[in-house]
């Protein structure tokens, strides 16, 4: 394992401290652990909290700020944060209007957030939740725990965050968050695995000429391995899966081409070049495109494409002013 770290046990702490030292105008860290909240608490709005394992930076601390999240809780690398940490985050940001938890659909995340939510409700804090499950690669049948939450989560932060910032009630913010979830689909591939610092070696193996199709953001296996193909062909396959999952005809879309950590912008633009062409050929109008690192998996080489089906409400909320470390609008 080759990484710019000091000590495996300190990776998460030092990452959060470094983030706060870089951007004190946006975030501050709570004493209790790796929870970051807005530097200045905003009253009179529904507060949004999200989080998950570390290793997905800028998610989720990078999305704390005006028009997006109020708190982000970082667990150990690729491991859900614990209920007590989430609970501290909820308490720090809670307002009379309540708190919305944005949870990615993983067994551990859902359990830990639910326990924290139960603890907060005992303090008479109003808590609601949404669970993001945008990954079309995995089967969402009754026989699984459902689809995984991946890069589409950033659109939930943006749009629900905009609604909350405008002073909407908890039910309304939850409704719009769920609307994003219902309309966003994502799929990813990887060509090189990542190494969790505490594990010391890669979570999976790929041959020099292989890729994992449908990879998760923790390096979990996707649908299959196959020989690496030209970028355009990979994009064709991903878009096939996404476009056949919900009907995008006649809608405008927001596109996110997201790096898994090590894939450079050059390649992301090459990918987006074809994403845009395919959508144009199908008569799907692109309203806005986001290219960059939004939901990474440490140093994994790979990318995901997300398509958010828009209506007027979502378009307006997507455009509303947001100012965070990693997302500005």
């Amino acid at each position, binding site marked *: 394992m080759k990484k710019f770290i000091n000590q495996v046990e300190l990776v998460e702490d030092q990452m959060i401290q470094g983030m706060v030292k870089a951007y004190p105008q946006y975030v501050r860290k709570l004493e209790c652990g790796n929870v970051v909240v807005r530097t200045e608490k905003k009253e009179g709005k529904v507060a949004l909290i999200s989080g998950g*394992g570390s290793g997905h930076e800028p998610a989720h601390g990078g999305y704390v700020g005006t028009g997006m999240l109020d708190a982000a809780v970082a*667990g*150990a690398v*690729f*491991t*859900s*944060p*614990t*209920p*007590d*940490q989430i609970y501290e985050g909820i308490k720090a940001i809670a307002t009379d209007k309540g708190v919305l938890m944005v949870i990615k659909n*993983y*067994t*551990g995340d859902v*359990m*830990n957030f639910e*326990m924290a939510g139960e603890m907060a409700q005992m303090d008479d804090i109003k808590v609601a939740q949404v669970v993001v499950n945008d990954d079309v690669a*995995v*089967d969402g049948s009754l*026989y*699984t*725990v459902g689809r*995984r939450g991946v890069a589409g989560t950033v659109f939930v932060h943006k749009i629900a965050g905009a609604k909350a910032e405008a002073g909407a009630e908890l039910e309304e913010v939850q409704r719009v968050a769920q609307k994003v979830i219902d309309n966003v689909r994502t799929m990813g591939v990887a060509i090189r695995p990542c190494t*969790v610092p*505490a*594990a010391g070696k890669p*979570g999976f193996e790929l041959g020099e000429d292989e890729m994992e199709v449908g990879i*998760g953001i*923790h*390096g*979990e*296996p996707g649908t299959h391995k196959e020989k690496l193909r030209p970028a355009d062909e990979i994009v064709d396959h991903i878009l096939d899966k996404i476009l056949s999952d919900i009907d995008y005809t006649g809608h405008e879309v927001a596109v996110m081409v997201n790096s898994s950590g090590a894939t450079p912008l050059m390649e992301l633009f090459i990918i987006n070049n074809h994403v845009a062409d395919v959508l144009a050929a199908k008569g799907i109008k692109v309203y806005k495109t986001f290219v960059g690192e939004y939901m990474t998996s440490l140093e994994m080489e790979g990318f995901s494409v997300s398509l958010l089906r828009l209506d007027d409400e979502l378009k307006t909320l997507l455009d509303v002013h947001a100012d965070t470390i990693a997302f500005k609008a």
Partner: protein
Amino acid sequence: MVNQEQVLEILHAIGEKITEEKLFLTELDNVIGDGDHGINLARGFAEVEKKRPMMEGKDIGTMLKTAGMALVSTVGGASGPLYGTAFMQAGKALAGKTELDAQDLVTILDAFVAGVQLRGKSVAGEKTMLDAMIPARDAVKAALDAGKDAKTALAEGVAAAEQGVEYTKTIIATKGRASYLGERSLGHQDPGATSFTTMLKVVAEHV
């Protein structure tokens, strides 16, 4: 049968054993999960060990509850809430006790099963820790009902848990991250069922 001091010793021994098996459990999890089970549990039991001064002299219910809270607050993942809830429920069921008898073993295992079912919204046969826990509970209960002593009952419980672990190799996961693998989860044992069996073995050795 087991007094307060012995409960602390058992918790300590479980921690040592889990730390010893850390890489093995993580390897199992690497294959069908996200490769952190052993690392996370070891971190949790290290925290339980730190809480030992707080537990000393307390009743056994409080000890188990404290251990559960420590697990919930340090393990993370799914195993944190699951084992944490299991220990906390067991603590609740044994509130005020300073000495455990053989029937309390069933009480603990009942609380474990109920806690994990509640938190994980799961049932037997989904390739989870319940597939070791439920047979172990049933075996211990059956042995005690048949008039066997605690030591024998626990040995039969361990055997049933081990069979449960073997059984998880033959079924497809429908809960947890392994569920995404579908048939690819066949042939692999469940890490949670394995870690529960490891813990139960330690208990059996100490009673």
